[in-house]
């Protein structure tokens, strides 16, 4: 601020020397200038306050959301919530099948989207020539990231559930979610790979390594923590996603655990949606309890991503 004040004083001086036609008018001009400067500084102060208030609204909204959910649901976070299957009676209902379903889906989706996403990112950063096809692929990826998730649900419903006859299964769900998170993974993996200094590649080539040896033994190990951070964040997005799985027909009432990838399933957000859409207060409490479980899961995932990112920042 002191810097700005100095500047303001300078301006006053400049104005003084320019706008003084006679000695008698001097004080009037200086007063007018002082007044103007005071007004501008008052506006500055007001706007600063306004911007601060606007910023804190976002923070307050998050507080309100968390307080609302915890106060409504914490009493229902009991062992029954994890051990019981969904039930018509709120007092007996749990989300065991939803938690297991989410974990199974993660188990299929994580390796699949990791391989495909990192593969695409390596191709685009290390192998692709700067031609039209590469530009189209790159543009297409950023466009795909903006497609509403429910449209992916429509794709999954038609392609996996109907055309490939996978049915309303865990596999259909995992494939749909893989397509949904791929653009996010590709973009973040590209950033991580781009951050590897060129010197590392040159050193590897100078030792006589081939392209693939350089990529697999020098570039990938240097960028792996950055890549994993992006993958974990994408997975946490997938864990909370509801709409596409509703589309492909993940059930809202599953009283069994899926045995294989072709079984029908439910996931945490869908179980929560089912409880939210019931009018009874007891189910609303269950929904809040389910949300607490979901948010804690996401918190753990995000926390591990932050730890990885810190490690990564130290490396390069």
């Amino acid at each position: 601020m002191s810097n700005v004040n100095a500047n303001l004083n300078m301006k006053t001086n400049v104005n003084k020397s320019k706008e003084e036609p006679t000695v008698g008018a001097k004080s009037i001009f200086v007063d007018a200038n002082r007044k103007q400067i005071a007004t501008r500084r008052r506006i500055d102060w007001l706007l600063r306050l306004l911007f601060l208030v606007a910023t804190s609204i976002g923070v307050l909204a998050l507080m309100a959301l968390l307080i609302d959910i915890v106060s409504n649901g914490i009493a229902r976070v009991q062992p029954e919530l994890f051990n019981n299957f969904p039930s018509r009676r709120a007092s007996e209902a749990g989300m065991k099948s939803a938690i297991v379903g989410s974990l199974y889906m993660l188990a299929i989706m994580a390796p699949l989207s990791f391989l495909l996403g990192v593969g695409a990112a390596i191709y685009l950063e290390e192998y692709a020539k700067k031609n039209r096809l590469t530009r189209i692929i790159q543009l297409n990826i950023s466009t795909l990231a903006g497609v509403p998730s429910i449209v992916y649900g429509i794709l999954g419903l038609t392609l996996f559930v109907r055309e490939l006859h996978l049915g309303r299964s865990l596999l259909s769900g995992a494939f749909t979610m893989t397509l949904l998170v791929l653009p996010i993974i590709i973009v973040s993996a590209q950033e991580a790979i781009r951050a590897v200094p060129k010197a590392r590649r040159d050193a590897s080539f100078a030792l006589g390594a081939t392209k693939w040896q350089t990529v697999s033994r020098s570039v990938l190990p240097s960028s792996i923590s950055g890549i994993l951070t992006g993958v974990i964040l994408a997975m946490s997005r997938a864990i909370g996603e509801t709409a596409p799985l509703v589309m492909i027909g993940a059930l809202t009432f599953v009283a069994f655990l899926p045995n294989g990838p072709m079984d029908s399933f439910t996931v945490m957000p869908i179980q929560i949606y089912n409880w939210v859409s019931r009018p009874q207060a007891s189910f609303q409490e269950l929904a809040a309890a389910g949300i607490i479980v979901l948010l804690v899961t996401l918190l753990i995932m995000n926390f591990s991503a932050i730890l990885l990112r810190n490690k990564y920042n130290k490396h390069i």
Partner: protein
Amino acid sequence: MRSDAVPTRESMFKNRKTHLMDRIMPVVLFLCATLSILTTIGIVFTLIGETFNFFRQIPFIDFITGTKWSPLIEPKSFGIWPLISGTLLITVIACLVAVPLGLASAIYLSEYAHKRVRGIVKPILEVLAGVPTIVYGYFALSLVTPVIRSLFSDAGVFNALSAGIVVGIMIIPMVCSLSEDAMTAVPRSLRDGAYALGATRFEVALKIVVPAAFSGIVASAVLAFSRAIGETMIVTVAAGSTPKLTGNPLESIQTMTAYIVQVSLGDTPHGSVEYGTIFAVGMTLFVITFLLNILAQYVARRFREEY
């Protein structure tokens, strides 16, 4: 012996496996990259195919000009406008919340905030962006709606205002971080120039930084608009399921996304007209968001101020 001393290409690649990997991997990786193109083609073809079937049964003109949407209840009618107006109502409310707040937060973070404050606020906004939409849906229904109903006695249990406000809260981080990126990209020398002329902070922010970053800010607003249009769970939970052509935010409405969810939850037989509506509505949704995303990219590139 002499030939052994000079490494030939063959001796360098003694390991045949290495050689093989260098031939195979580029192809494999290329296939991974083309999967994104295939996804787009898949989306377009599934939507076009079923939409085409739908329009063989329902005239396109009725769909695009009709003002009544009741495909599940007799007498059936298939005018998309109630769904579009519901979607726009939500989106406009959301943008009225998100654009001013997001922009103000971005100005605060990039021009005013101390480094330490930014270090605290930015992660909080990131958390806000990472909250699943179903959680926001619960938040709308359990906290925002009761507040609105206590303020406006004629508001319904499901109303567009509550859902719109919460969608707005959801996209604040997006507007904020994209606008802030644009503002951070404005060179420091421009700010210093203005300060040297005696400008105050708000003058620098509003007369120098915002105009210079304007293309990025507009692009962020357009992207936010597109994101709000595609938002599904909040509106499904909190905005109701009664498609109607209304501008009253206190009434229950239905958006395109919420309609798609409603149909897919029911037992709609494959191949029926009702089943086709998913694709016709999905196509409309896809085309609108696609055009908006292209527009955002165009604005960001075309009107960028180069320094």
